[in-house]
């Protein structure tokens, strides 16, 4: 697990805050895209008397988790009906996401986006798939990590940041937490699949491709190539199990690229574009700088900058 120059551990390799800027901007864009969908279909997904009324979905939640019905009750004396409260929260969420992308008052912007995302997510929790949890993880890190120190209005207003050792350690620690969390995600996802026999036979891939909710193309003919589907299933399991090991070795670039390809495949073949975008942003934020350095070395650069010119 030697990180090359100076023998630094790969865990402490990150040398700039640019990976965290990637996280901030990427997650902000995903939040905006999702908010546009939620706004356009708020009468279906977020209405108190929608196909799943709040009274039903709220009953499945812990009372300590925020949901829009709490706020509609508190704001009712001001004459705001529940749908106006939904719209207020969505608009505030959009403002938070825009400011997050710009990196203006970054921590406050991330806090606003997070604080409005929570009640929106929990009020519509029966409509959220894997993206709900992954976005919350990413948004929480946008709030607590120093994501506004690069490529941000905050940085432009504060002037050139210093390059002290403490600053670099701070970046390394922040990116290191992201890396470890991603390793946990992939290890758990890989183990959960590995115990299922259908992932070893290719049936899981076949089944996913056969469900109308994911169908992007007519792939019925693939049943004539079971070896191909088996290889895809095995690749998904092996890539996820290998990820938390190989990202700490010289094979980091290869395994991260494989993970990105996996998510690209999920987006193209299963249509889960937003979920895949979140995973790809997290990967780029956690290991993108490493890949950039590897690419620079591969191209023969003698003294590669941290990520772009510094």
């Amino acid at each position, binding site marked *: 697990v030697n990180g090359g120059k100076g023998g630094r551990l790969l865990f402490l390799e990150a040398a700039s805050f640019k990976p965290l800027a990637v996280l901030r901007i990427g997650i902000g864009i995903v939040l905006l895209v*999702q908010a546009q*969908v939620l706004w*356009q*279909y708020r009468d*279906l*997904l977020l209405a108190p*008397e*929608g*196909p*799943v*009324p709040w009274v*039903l979905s709220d009953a499945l939640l*812990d009372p*300590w*988790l925020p949901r829009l019905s709490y706020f509609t009750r508190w704001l009712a004396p001001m004459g705001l009906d529940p749908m106006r409260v939904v719209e207020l929260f969505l608009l505030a969420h959009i403002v938070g996401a825009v400011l997050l992308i710009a990196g203006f008052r970054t921590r406050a912007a991330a806090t606003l986006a997070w604080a409005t995302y929570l009640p929106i997510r*929990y009020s*519509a929790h*029966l*409509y*959220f*798939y*894997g993206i709900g*949890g*992954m*976005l*919350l*993880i*990413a*948004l*929480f890190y946008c709030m607590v990590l120093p994501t506004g120190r690069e490529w941000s209005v905050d940085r432009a207003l504060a002037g050139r940041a210093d390059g002290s050792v403490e600053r670099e350690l701070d970046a390394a*620690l922040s990116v290191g*937490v992201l890396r*470890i*969390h991603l390793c*946990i*995600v992939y*290890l*758990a*996802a890989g183990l*959960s*699949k590995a*115990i299922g026999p*259908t*992932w070893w036979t*290719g*049936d*899981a891939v*076949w*089944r*996913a491709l*056969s*469900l*109308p*909710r994911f169908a992007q193309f007519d792939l*019925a003919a693939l*049943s004539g190539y*079971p070896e191909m589907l088996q290889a895809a299933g095995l690749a998904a399991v092996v890539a996820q199990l290998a990820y938390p090991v190989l990202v700490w070795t010289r094979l980091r670039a290869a395994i991260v690229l494989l993970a990105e390809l996996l998510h690209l495949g999920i987006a193209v073949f299963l249509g*889960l*574009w*937003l979920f895949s975008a979140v995973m790809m942003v997290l990967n780029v934020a956690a290991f993108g700088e490493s890949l950039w350095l590897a690419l620079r070395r591969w191209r023969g650069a003698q003294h590669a900058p941290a990520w772009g010119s510094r």
Partner: protein
Amino acid sequence: VRREIIVAGAAVHLIVAALFATHVRIERYLPSAIERPLRVYGGYTGASTHFDFFAPAVPTQPRVRFEITAANGGTRVIDFATPSAEVNQRFAVMYATYELPSLRSALVRAWAVFVLERYPDARSVEVQVDVLDVPTLAQAHRGKTAQWVEAARTVVRREDLQ
């Protein structure tokens, strides 16, 4: 000291994330005095997320069909499909909660109420839930195709709701 506190906090956060990460519902084995604070903490931070997407097996997909009967006896089938693939995906996720037996009757009633409110001319709505029977890879290779199998059918009349 500040740095040590931050590192300790990050370590605790990651330990909680690791505890909840797998398909094993660890929350069922923890004393509630520990489990609930951890689950609520995870609810605010994402640390209680289970990463068992498509695992250990890919579940099937239900579909829901609504047939409304108007006062004049005419019938028509409606659905909630939208031009947005993302919204349709989320509806499929919501329909999948029908798999939970404890929620079934409440869900069917909620869907019926929503349909009857959207279509004031409807006297009743028939809610039909079908589940897709996906053949295994070997069965598909031998020519078997996926079939929708009716799982439940319920008629809800407007007067039943009053």
